[in-house]
């Protein structure tokens, strides 16, 4: 499943996409994120999945544009820590 967390508003589209088929729940992304945006827990959108999966915390879902801001400077941007940390390559950002 491609889980899109985030929103679209007047200023643009801000989604963190987690491919739950690739995610193995290893929690590397949780440790890598400096702002506590990610967590690992039950798959809320697949009641029959038993394995834990990465997701964006409820707290950050409506403000990812700002939560992820520190990792996205206007210039001199380095690869995003969450994406770098994810072995299976399950995480992507829309902006």
């Amino acid at each position, binding site marked *: *499943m*491609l*889980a*899109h967390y985030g*929103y*679209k*508003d*007047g200023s643009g*589209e801000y*989604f963190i996409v987690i491919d739950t088929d690739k995610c193995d729940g290893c929690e590397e992304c949780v440790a890598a994120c400096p702002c506590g945006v990610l967590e690992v827990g039950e798959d*809320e*959108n*697949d*009641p029959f999945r038993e394995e834990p999966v990465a997701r964006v915390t409820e707290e950050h*879902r*409506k403000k990812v544009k700002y939560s992820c801001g520190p990792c996205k400077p206007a210039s001199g941007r380095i690869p995003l820590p969450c994406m770098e940390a994810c072995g299976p390559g399950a995480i992507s950002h*829309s902006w």
Partner: protein
Amino acid sequence: MEKEYWRWPESRWTSPDVDWKDGDIISAGVDVGSVSSQAVVLVDGNLYAYSNFRTGSGSPESAQKVMDKALEETGLTLNKIDYIVGTGYGRVNVPFAQRTITEIACHARGANFMYGPTVRTILDMGGQDCKAIRCDAEGKVTNFLMNDKCAAGTGRGMEVFADLLSVPIEDLGRLSFEVDKEPEPVSSTCVIFAKSEAVGLLRKGWPKEKVLAAYSSAMAHRVAKLLERIKVEKDFAITGGIAKNEGVVKRIEAELKIKALEPKHDTQIAGALGGALFANALVEKEKGRR
């Protein structure tokens, strides 16, 4: 008191073909949304009864009310229901639910039942949010996107426009086509900005119909953009209250160049129906284990 044009009709329904007394498993789903709440009761996985009412200020009371309404005159009582799933925005506040499941999962499952297994893309236009969901033939979610930060392009927006234009909400869709030429969409779908823009257009002398056309097409454009991100695949279905507004539905169809499936039931019950289907599956799973 002045007429409240935004008030959409509430409904309840009982199947003439199903009797709960013959049933093995009775399951239910309750969807407490931001604007409307629904309860659906299944008997052995068949649709038995449903109700669709406005959500009040308290979620537990709203959940109780829709459940009572669904069971009204059926002789069926809450304690005879084997399993109840709560879903929607207020799902944690359904006091009698054994489990909660997100509305994303429930909508996919419910639409799979309502529209058949060929449904691949579901657009839920709720009271205060929009969901774009892709699913497989079993109704399992394969891709989803939810926009609940911004109420643009949702039912609440339509309610505001019904009041602004003094047109009953059920007539908005039809009226929006009574224009010679489709006007430019309003520049913002934000409920507040669009309303001020519409007031300006009315002052300029635009007829109601033209203002409605401009708002409906802006709404359609906005959700079409959301759908682009998950990519629309046939068959396509629209659920939620706005699915009853032909002015928006037809404009979405035109924009996407794809027809939406015809609904057989109240389009607002998809979430509660999905919850009831999950409840039924959970009971079956439990029985299988014994």
